[in-house]
């Protein structure tokens, strides 16, 4: 990725990365009158969640539908509050009065990229909306940030005047990432960011996220039910089953040496049951093979 | 399941009661906003000792909540004040006008139900034939032409030019004809529109297509598959029309000098006869709420889906 003018600070990952975002013994349960079907189907209850995302690292969260993955994303975005337990950001407790500042540094990327864009607003305006909402900025500064953001995600300027229905799903997801990046966050919470995309585009988006993590020192929480993309992107993995974390550890530990039957069954359910780079190369021969063999240190 | 059904019934009845209380409260607030309630209830020319007695009874020196409760008590007892014009109990005056209104409304609604439902079905089944088009256009025109204008045109044609029917009064069936037709026109147009949409949707559905594929004759499909599924919205509209029976005929009654509640309503509004207006409003509101409740409960009885979902 080229780094254009005024590119925000590049964080270098320290030698021993400290946790940037932590969940401590978090319990959560939806209140009785649930509003959306997703919440009814999705994890209705979380128990004793402990998790930490390290600075500059990609953390994967695997689990079947309804295991509570999206609920964790909601908690980490401050969209709901846990009933018990704590959410720590850079070692400080996340409280309602810190929420606004917190949200500037933790941004989401959602599953359905087109639904995450307002259908009636041009793309350019949507990308700068977070800046306009949060800061009083000169429009030249805005334009510079906007240009930086879209080139960081590999989009060209002509997309800015378009409406969401005029662009493809992959472009839309890049727009979403650009909107998240324009606030220059430390953490991206990616809730199934590639599930709604087709295979080649999935690979492009995964590469983009991986590049961004390296070039900007971003931390990622990558939520997916697709073990292959998690294996490709993440260095640490947690496995969620019915609202509890059943397994957690480095990528190799979890994938190559699964402790629980649940994880084993998940692994068996992957179409090509071998793992790692080899597996990825087989499933998507076009993109995932070429430049990036999974580096040793992730 | 039984307990659930009772629960649904109870919640519906509770909701109706809340609406009823809200309505009475609304009327109370409106009356208080208007000014001195003694004048409002007794009329401008009440004698001073009558005023004193009444404000004592109303307890105007008491806090507003107590006044409100006293008002509720009066409403429940049916004492809504004395009509300025008739010098009688307002509710009694209103009730004495009720039968004629009910006669008119019954005739009009029967007519409307027959023509409206038939027209709606015709418009849905033959959408591109002459009959269907005429029904569709007639239903739009029927909704859009205000009933006072239709009444004038009918009067002009049938009473003045042809001299077949009287222009007003309530002497014989002949004087019933024009008001009933006028009133039926609007209701029938509304019914026809809803029937058309409901039947059309039902006709477009897969189960009707499947029935066609099985070679079932069209009339059987219409009677056994289409109409039962289209019945719910039609019943709702019918319920609304029946519920509005007390005041639905206001305009028509005024125009044809039909001495029913609607006529009384407009003359009372004109002469600012507040107790009578208030009585009519409360009566009409109660009738509407009760009909809605009946329709709701009827659904819960009749619709198999609502029963199974309670299990």
């Amino acid at each position, binding site marked *: 990725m080229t780094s254009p003018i005024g590119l925000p600070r590049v964080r270098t990952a320290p030698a021993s990365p400290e946790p940037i975002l932590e969940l401590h013994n978090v319990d959560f349960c939806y209140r009785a009158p649930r509003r959306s079907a*997703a919440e009814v189907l999705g994890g209705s209850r979380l128990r004793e969640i402990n998790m930490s995302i390290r600075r500059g690292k990609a953390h994967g969260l695997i689990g079947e539908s309804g295991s509570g993955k999206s609920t964790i994303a909601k908690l980490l*975005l401050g969209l709901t509050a846990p009933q018990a337990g704590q959410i720590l950001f850079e070692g400080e407790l996340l409280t309602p009065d810190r929420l606004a500042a917190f*949200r*500037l540094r933790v*941004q*989401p990327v*959602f*599953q359905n990229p087109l639904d*995450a864009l*307002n*259908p009636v*607003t041009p793309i350019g305006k949507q990308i700068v*909306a*977070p800046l306009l909402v*949060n800061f009083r900025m000169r429009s030249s500064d805005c334009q510079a940030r906007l240009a930086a953001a879209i080139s960081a995600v590999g989009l060209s300027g002509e997309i800015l005047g378009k409406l969401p229905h005029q662009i493809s799903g992959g472009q839309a997801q890049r727009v979403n990432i650009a*909107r998240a990046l324009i606030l220059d966050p430390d953490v991206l919470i990616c809730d199934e960011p590639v599930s709604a995309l087709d295979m080649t585009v999935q690979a492009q988006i995964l590469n983009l996220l991986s590049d961004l993590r390296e070039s900007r020192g971003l931390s990622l929480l990558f939520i997916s039910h697709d073990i292959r993309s998690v294996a490709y992107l993440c260095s640490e993995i947690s496995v969620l089953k019915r609202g509890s974390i059943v397994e957690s550890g480095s990528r190799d530990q979890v994938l190559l040496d699964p402790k629980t039957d649940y994880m084993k069954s998940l692994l068996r359910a992957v179409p090509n049951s071998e793992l790692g780079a080899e597996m990825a190369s087989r499933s998507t021969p076009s993109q995932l093979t070429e430049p990036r063999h999974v580096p040793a240190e992730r | 399941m039984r307990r659930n059904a009772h629960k649904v019934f109870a919640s519906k009845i509770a*909701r109706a009661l*809340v*609406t009823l209380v*809200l*309505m009475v409260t609304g*009327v109370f607030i*409106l009356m208080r*906003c*208007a000014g001195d309630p003694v004048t409002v209830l007794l009329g401008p020319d009440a004698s001073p000792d009558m005023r004193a007695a009444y404000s004592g009874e109303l307890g105007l020196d008491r806090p507003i909540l107590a006044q409100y409760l006293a008002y509720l008590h009066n409403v429940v007892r049916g004492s809504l004040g004395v009509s300025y014009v008739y010098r009688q109990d307002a509710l009694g005056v209103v009730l004495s006008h009720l039968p004629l209104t009910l006669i008119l409304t019954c005739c009009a609604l029967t007519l409307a139900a027959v023509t409206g439902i038939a027209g709606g079905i015709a418009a849905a*089944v*033959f*959408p*591109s*034939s002459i009959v269907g088009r005429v029904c569709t256009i007639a239903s*739009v*025109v029927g*909704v*859009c*032409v*205000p009933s*006072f*204008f239709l009444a*004038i045109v009918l009067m*002009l044609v049938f009473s003045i030019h042809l001299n077949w029917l009287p222009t007003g009064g309530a002497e014989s069936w002949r004087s019933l004809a024009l008001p009933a037709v006028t009133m039926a026109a609007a209701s029938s147009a*509304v019914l026809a529109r809803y029937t058309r949409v409901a039947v059309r949707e039902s006709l*477009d559905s897969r189960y009707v297509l499947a029935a*066609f594929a099985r*070679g079932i004759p*069209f009339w059987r499909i219409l009677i056994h598959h289409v109409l039962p599924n289209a019945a719910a919205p039609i019943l709702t509209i019918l319920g609304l029309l029946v519920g509005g029976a007390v*005041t*639905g005929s*206001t*305009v028509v009654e*005024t125009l044809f000098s039909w001495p029913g509640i609607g006529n009384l*309503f*407009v003359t009372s*509004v*004109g002469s600012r006869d507040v107790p009578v*207006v*208030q009585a*009519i*409003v409360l009566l*009409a509101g109660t009738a509407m*709420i009760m009909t809605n409740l009946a329709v709701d409960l009827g659904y819960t009885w009749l619709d198999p889906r609502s029963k199974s979902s309670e299990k």
Partner: protein
Amino acid sequence: MSTAWPHEWTWNIFQTSKARRDPRKPAKVGLYGASIWIVGCLLIAALAQVISPYHPAQISLDARLMPPLFFGGTLEHLLGTDELGRDVLARLIYSIQISMLVAVGGTFISTLLGVSLGFLAAELGGLIDEGVMALVDMQAAVQFMVTALLVITIFGNSLALFVCLVGLHGWERHARIARGLALTARNRLHVTAARTYNASRVHIYAKHILPACAPTVVVGMTLGLTETVLLESTLSFLGLGIQPPMSSLGNMVGFGRDYLMTAWWIALAPGLVIAATAIALMTISESLRQTGPRPASFNSI
């Protein structure tokens, strides 16, 4: 396929149902005619003072009860004159002005009131939601005509009060629709995304939820406009709405009624204008509804 059907007209049913789904299908001619009529009415309303041939209150006792052109009248009074020799066309133009003012003003107020209450109920939930919905139920339970007559009895009437009263009509439908749409829209991801970048509630409702509701609300507005035109004319006809010396369409029909035998044109002209306006609005509303997204619910026509 068509030969397989037992009756020829069954084929007809499916054919037209397919044609109906085509978004370009709705009758264009009717729509254009309706739009031209409505725009014309609005223009007349805006320019009434300029285009009116006479002052509406100008009395000329020599020319009383003149019939319209083609019915024995003259070019001087195109639509004839009334019992005091006032020009019917001039009065019609001024009446259109008042009626349009009341209808547009009333619809605007009711939409504003309904949509904001619906949004409040959706956003705040809880007791406020229950309260708003109870009010909606109450308003839906009592026919609006009844409410209107009660209010007029108690407060009398002036133009401003009358516009506000008409503006109360139909708010409950807007509130119900807006609440339903807002509840759906706030679960959309772009709203969630806006929340994650600290957008305020006002910002979210103005930029995200209102645009999502707008098409349905506009359809509801055209429908409300139709009803408002009819309501205003009915009340004025009964002598309870617009009061002389101002005249509205319904008001004109009401006074013309006394001269039905001798001068039918006094009542006929405004009556036809009311009916045509209502039909035009209904046509526009229908075609908007067919081309736009399906509205959540319309409880009355």
